[in-house]
């Protein structure tokens, strides 16, 4: 184990005692990362865990209240449950749509002969821009009443209607399918052409090839994307913040979990409650990821398994 820190060539030449001393420089070079991890990640996490058991209004010292925040969250706060259902609805709408779109576009790009680089960049661009507030505001303008969608389809503004606002938020996420698309594309290019040739010789049509070759061969990548996008979707904030005018409106229809957390913490000054919410979110995301991993055993196919 310890040898991993030592350059390969020096492995046998250095006696054990000197080897220990050699760790000094390694720690010095690691120190920015180690300090960063401690100061910027571990410490804040510990503080947040502590705060989740307190009543803290930002201005006065935290007051220990034990489990009260958690109890209140689960039993006395209807708006908390509304934020939970809103987030779940959002995850269920946005993630499958986004992955499906990413896969379709990746398939189209794969079979493309010319201009692949251009289209790849063009489809990837929204992912680079999409997280920004400005795009979210443009989106809001498009779906506002009197906005583009209203003018084209006469549907009225989506962002002002409780039934539609969350869909506008989800569409903004779906539009940013660039990252999973690039990963799908890389996965598709890893599939050996011989498999398709063999399948074709056996008389499989395009659809059959897709189901029997592409899908199983792509399943690890699909799984990877699913896990990543699900984790991200649970934490959606910026689009909901912009489209719901910072309040999760209209009528709490875009009040996603993180937005309500932000509201409790920074608008209502209940930092303890917000911290408790954050920890519940962390645990839920962990649990959902664990469930995904468990189910993956039955549908994700790794080529190396065949060698066993």
């Amino acid at each position, binding site marked *: 184990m310890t040898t991993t820190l030592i350059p390969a060539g020096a492995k046998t030449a250095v006696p054990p005692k000197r080897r220990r*001393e050699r760790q*000094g*420089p390694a*720690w*010095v070079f690691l*120190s*920015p990362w180690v*300090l960063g991890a401690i*100061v910027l990640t571990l410490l804040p996490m510990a503080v947040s865990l502590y705060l989740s058991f307190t*009543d803290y*209004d*930002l*201005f*006065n010292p935290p007051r220990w209240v034990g489990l009260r925040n958690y109890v209140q969250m689960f039993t*006395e706060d*209807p708006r908390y449950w509304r934020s939970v259902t809103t987030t779940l609805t959002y995850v269920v709408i946005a993630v499958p749509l986004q992955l499906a779109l990413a896969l379709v576009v990746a398939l189209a790009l794969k079979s493309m002969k010319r201009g692949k680089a251009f289209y790849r960049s063009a489809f990837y661009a929204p992912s680079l821009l999409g997280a920004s507030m400005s795009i979210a505001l443009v989106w809001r303008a498009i779906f506002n*009443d009197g906005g583009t969608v209203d003018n084209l389809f006469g549907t*009225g*503004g989506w962002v*002002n*209607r*409780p039934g539609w606002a969350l869909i506008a938020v989800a569409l903004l996420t779906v539009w940013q399918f660039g990252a999973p698309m690039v990963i799908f594309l890389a996965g598709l290019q890893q599939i050996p052409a011989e498999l398709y040739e063999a399948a074709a010789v056996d008389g499989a049509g395009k659809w059959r090839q897709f189901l029997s070759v592409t899908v199983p061969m792509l399943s690890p990548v699909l799984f990877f994307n699913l896990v990543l996008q699900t984790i991200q979707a649970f934490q959606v904030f910026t689009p909901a913040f912009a489209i719901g*005018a*910072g*309040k*999760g*409106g*209209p*009528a*709490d229809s875009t009040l996603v979990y993180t937005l309500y957390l932000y*509201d409790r913490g*920074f*608008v*209502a*000054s*209940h*930092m303890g409650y917000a911290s408790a919410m954050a920890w519940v979110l962390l645990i839920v995301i962990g649990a959902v990821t664990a469930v995904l991993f468990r189910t993956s055993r039955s549908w994700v196919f790794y080529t190396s398994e065949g060698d066993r």
Partner: protein
Amino acid sequence: MPGHRTKGFCASAAALALCAMLVGCTGSGESVGGGKVVLRYTWWGNPDRAERTEQALALFEKQHPDIQVQTSFSAYDAYKQKLATQAAGGDAPDVMQLDYRQIDQYASGGVLLDLGEQKAVLRTGEIDAGLLATGRLDGTQYAVPQGRGTETIAYDVEGWKATGVPLPDRSWTWSEWADTMRTLAERTGRPGATDPGQSEDCFEVWLRGRGKSLYTEDGGLGFTADDLTRWWTFTDELRREGVVSPAEQTTQLDGSVENTPLGRGESLTDANWDAPASGYLALIPGGIALAPMPSGEDGTPGQYFKPSMFLGVGADTGHPEEAARLVDFLVNDEQAAKILGATRGIPVNDSVRKEIEPRLTDFDGTIAAYQASLEGTLGTPPQAPPSGDNALQTTFQRDYDQVSYERMSPREAAENYVTEAKAELRS
């Protein structure tokens, strides 16, 4: 053990570098090259206010060549949240504009400097004693009121005249107001006003017109779910009739005049505070006039004069004296007052106000005349709201959203609100 020394040295060097980095980030009001003191001054408002503020600050910097003022501003909602975060992080600005609602929380949380310590540079002798006291908590002066404001019904003069409805009188009751809005809506085919149901401020005026108040003296809730149900039933009926703005428009309100139905050209009137109403001028070509808020049915006024905003100094400022000088300049300097006009309300310094009032032109003159017309007719201002009110303002809007989108009855929403308000005020 030379090896150990090197290791120790490197570790402390790294720690030092990190400390230097952290210190560099937290310094507030640090000095920059040339020995100038830099003060950070933050406030909320609109571009009109920004332009005049910059002009006034240029004058201040000219008078005090050793001080440089950096400003930033945003709309009220965003400002409130940003300032709370800064204050919690120990990074409060040197000079900050505060709302009545924030005083209690910020002062009791130790964010604000005791301004009594800066008497030498910050004069308060010419400020009305009652008004000055609103910036005091437990006998300590934490903030100085910067202007006096009151609520108003701002209206599009030309648009109103075109309807043939007589312009609003000196006084009206809530039911007279509703009837007038109904006529306006009938003649224009658009709502007459912003739905006042979402506004805690409007509710307060209505409530006071019935002899009650938002909060009791000991910081409890001053009204019942029945009162709120009555108010929301009243506004909800008006909304259903199309007399006030529909939910789709009301939900877009964010504290800026641009996003009100009046600012967007969707209605003829809006209830607002008088100072920010100047922002409508840029949006409404026909001009803006001010009418008083409706009173209770028996003529009891619900409206009151309120310190429109305060200035406070951060407790951790590195330059308390310079910061107090800036506050003094903004509140007491005649030249500054001439530039600032009534953008933050009518000045609180008596001699400055007397000097300024006749010279106020344009909309500032309108505000001054409006306030003068109300002198002696209004009720006494309530004491500063308790800390929990900060969150309740938003809760009020959200709960009314449920009514205006017809997801809850006025009674259900009102009961929701009262439950949450009681919990909020207890904690």
